[in-house]
């Protein structure tokens, strides 16, 4: 009596086991298959960075069809990307300067090999008859991403310019995409964030630019040291293509905005991206990272107590590797 039930269940069970075996093999196939071409895993974020266009136009794939197999891995922000690189899951990443420094402080190992974009950060102030300048921010609500960020330092600089201190404003923490929405709702009077969210508020007519740090380099290409050591040529080649794309974006902003609009698909329309490209972001002429610039930068973050790096020179020399970018022909 009970036997029949057991047999039936065994059959079903073995069928299920077989099915899962097949599915899981198919699932992990890509991890098992052997590769002949060099696999380059590039981490990207949905932010206005040059490599998003390199990706959407398939430039690397076309040019190095027989040499490289490119794998693009998306991250929502720099943090997981840095962790993935530390775990060896990606070889290239473009990330903001503060997450990169903080990652190295935590002991993550990667090399900065090229300059990406500049002027990503700024502070916008709500368009309001009562708020005419930075000094009018006294007692007002300001949104910021968190105390350990470069944006926080920008906020301190901006307040200083307006003769205020951090105690004069009401701070609210938010994530970058939330800031322009809070601005539109009039829940905040100013926010210090990044492009394209600054341009979104400006184009929507909710705010105007309040403060932008002078000469700011924001984004950097980093590479996994093990990968760079065994494939230096690949690093140079990839950097070269990113650099070409940067130059193309500068010369063809309209088309670049079109390409980006395809990627974003959200509330960030083409005109916002175009505004950001024309008025905000800087696409680097010189891709080679310099020690001096970094030493100056870390001195300033140390002064704002965002970082606690004692031996700046050693830190920078271990971190910055300009040799690959130097080989990129202008």
């Amino acid at each position: 009596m009970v036997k029949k039930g057991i047999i039936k269940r065994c059959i079903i069970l073995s069928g299920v086991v077989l099915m899962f075996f097949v599915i899981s093999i198919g699932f992990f196939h890509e991890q098992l298959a052997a590769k002949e071409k060099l696999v380059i895993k590039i981490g990207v974020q949905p932010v206005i960075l040059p490599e998003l266009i390199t990706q959407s136009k398939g430039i690397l794939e076309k040019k190095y069809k027989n040499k490289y197999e490119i794998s693009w891995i998306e991250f929502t922000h720099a943090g997981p990307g840095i962790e993935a690189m530390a775990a060896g899951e990606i070889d290239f990443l473009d990330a903001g300067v503060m997450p990169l420094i903080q990652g190295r402080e935590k002991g993550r190992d990667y090399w900065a090999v090229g300059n990406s974009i500049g002027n990503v950060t700024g502070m916008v102030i709500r368009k309001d008859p009562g708020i005419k300048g930075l000094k009018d921010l006294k007692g007002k609500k300001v949104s910021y991403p968190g105390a350990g960020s470069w944006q926080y330092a920008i906020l301190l600089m901006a307040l200083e310019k307006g003769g205020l201190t951090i105690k004069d404003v009401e701070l609210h923490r938010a994530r970058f995409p939330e800031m322009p929405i809070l601005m539109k709702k009039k829940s905040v009077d100013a926010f210090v964030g990044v492009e394209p969210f600054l341009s979104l508020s400006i184009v929507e007519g909710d705010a105007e630019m309040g403060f932008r740090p002078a000469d700011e380099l924001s984004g950097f290409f980093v590479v996994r040291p093990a990968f760079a050591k065994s494939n230096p040529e690949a690093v140079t080649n990839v950097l070269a293509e990113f650099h070409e794309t940067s130059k193309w974006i500068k010369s063809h902003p309209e088309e670049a905005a079109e390409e980006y609009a395809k990627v974003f698909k959200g509330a960030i329309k083409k005109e916002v991206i175009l505004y950001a490209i024309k008025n905000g972001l800087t696409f680097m002429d010189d891709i080679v990272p310099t020690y001096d610039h970094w030493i100056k930068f870390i001195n300033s973050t140390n002064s704002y107590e965002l970082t606690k790096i004692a031996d700046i020179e050693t830190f920078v020399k271990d971190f910055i590797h300009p040799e690959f970018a130097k080989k990129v022909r202008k």
Partner: protein
Amino acid sequence: MKNSVSHFKNHRRKLFFLIDIIILLILWTIVSFSSEVAYNYILPPINVVFGDFVKLIADGVLVQHITSSVLRTLLGFFLAVITAVPVGLLLGWSERFYSIFEPIIEILRPISPIAWIPLSILWFGIGENSKIFIIWLLAFFFIIMNAIHGVKNINPNLIDAARTLGASKKFLFFKVIMPAAFPNILIGMRLGMGVSIGAVVIAEMIAAKSGIGFMMERARTVIDPSPVIIGLVLIGLLGILTNLCFVKIENFMMKHRVSK
């Protein structure tokens, strides 16, 4: 007489289901049009979301994400079943083993699997394995506790009867204990599955390369509200679907037993 009453009740339930969906859609529209912010950034109207839904399917993107999430859940679940059932049956049967493992179980059990996610990502990376681990963890505890409960609740007379009739230990285990504990195990599986879908989405939101949670989180980053809403609806629907599947399986097994 009885049939027509349950028939009526069935129809009534389906009718209310439809009415509730309509109410939900009406509320959706009201909230959507309540402000410019809601319309553009939080909850776009139904036609906009539906349009984006169709686009995502056409691109093949949505299907990929759903498949990722579902496969991870199923795999983790499967691993949990083959590990938790034997262990649970053993712990339920043997007082000795139970008392050895009880402190470990009691300490680990109250910790929500969600809290394990950062650790899992640290250990397994952002790939499939970290999600499968979380699902395994979640389902393991659900199934094992119900398996133990199932064994402990077996009518002792049944076991005595089998013993008196000269049953061997093996027979006892496979033909008496396992079938008796089976319904409880199924309930544990159903409950575990119900929570698993939410758990895998959360893990994907934190760190993943694909999946429903990843899709929702990425959409948030570019202020694209539609995929977020689509994701929420998908989670709800998958929950209902898996629950129905398990209820069908349970009913099938019940009929099976009753006929014996």
